[in-house]
């Protein structure tokens, strides 16, 4: 679905679009009730959880997730984290979440997190498209200098997607994860504002 033809032209086209919209998806505000319901559903998919982060898979009530989201998104509204839901342009379906945390305004660095809970949308460019929106937002709107992320060695689909969006591997925390009795590395990736601009 991606092509290399006229990347400048293509960026020109993207620039003329709304900030929170890409080719396949757009970002919408994470309303706690909606986010909690979807999150509870996605967290039942243990593969999704094991791709998403290091916490052990576990099951909590929708109410508990709602309480978390209320606290994060409504009550605290912390200055060092932001996150949105990812919605498809075609079906208007919420398929995942994306955001920044640990934003270091002084240094211009932040950590990216992304997860697609709806499996039918894996490997089809939706995540990459969402990441491109986030990069543009981070560099053109938030004026950050770089973005960081960590991804697990066994998540090659995500690594490919991040590379497509312009991230490069900056190192690996050896044997960081223990899954089913095997150890896996956690890979660090990063992208600088200048690298993003050149694309």
């Amino acid at each position, binding site marked *: 679905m991606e092509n290399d033809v006229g990347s400048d032209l293509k960026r020109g086209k993207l620039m003329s679009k709304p900030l929170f919209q890409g080719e396949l998806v757009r970002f919408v505000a994470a309303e706690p009730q909606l986010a909690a319901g979807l999150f509870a559903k996605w967290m039942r998919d243990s593969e999704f959880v094991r791709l998403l982060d*290091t*916490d*052990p898979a576990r099951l909590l009530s929708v109410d508990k997730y709602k309480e978390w989201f209320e606290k994060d998104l409504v009550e605290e509204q912390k200055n060092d984290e932001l996150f949105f839901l990812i919605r498809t342009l075609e079906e208007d379906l919420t398929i995942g979440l994306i955001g920044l945390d640990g934003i*270091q305004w*002084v*240094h*211009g*660095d932040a950590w990216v997190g992304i997860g697609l809970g709806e499996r039918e949308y894996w490997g089809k460019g939706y995540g990459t498209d969402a990441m491109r929106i986030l990069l543009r937002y981070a560099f053109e709107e938030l004026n950050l*200098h*770089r973005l*960081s992320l960590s991804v697990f060695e066994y998540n090659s689909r995500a690594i490919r997607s991040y590379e497509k969006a312009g991230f490069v591997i*900056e*190192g*690996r*925390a*050896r*044997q*960081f*994860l*223990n899954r089913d009795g095997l*150890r896996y590395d956690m890979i*660090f990736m*990063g992208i*600088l504002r200048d690298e993003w601009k050149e694309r």
Partner: protein
Amino acid sequence: MDLNTPLFEGQLVYLASIKPDQDAEIESHWTHDAEFQRLLGKELVRLLSPAQIKKNYTEIEKEMDEKGNQFYFTIRRLPLSERAEAVHGAVQDSDFLLGFARLDWIAWSHGVGSLSIGIGNPEERGKGYGSDALRLLLGYAFRELNLYRVCIAIPEYNQIALRLFEKAAFKVEARRREALHRKGRRWEVLHLGLLREEWEQSEWRTMWAQI
């Protein structure tokens, strides 16, 4: 090394709990040395009053208690010798706060955690207190918490820390380019890691076992 090998007593220092009233005064004083905060990493350099620091202590102990994924120690100087005790007064000397040592972000299911160490007063650096505290903290991480690996993030400009951790068998695993902006230029954040088996084979541990 066996069950009787002490976890908290080193050759020069020992690990202790926070003593909120007296420590907050000293730590507030440390924040007036911007260099200390810069050496530690990315956090905003600012001045903190003893009252603000005491509140941080309360938060730290609350999290230690409720979340159970971090361990915070103060580093204090061991009495130099009987003679020194006679001269300086043992209680005062052994109470002397040098810095802090902590393990946090522990992910129990993976057996991994992150550590940090700081010696607050510039005049007390370079005397081996940090090495001794690190040896104790690694012993605690691997012997008591049974972790599989530990890691630390170091700003590129903190070469002294880099040498210390490399001496302790840590390996540089990642360099996050231009992740810090200090003194008008960009610096890398180095991520170092140490596996249990590397610690077990390290000279440091042998030295430690002989104490």
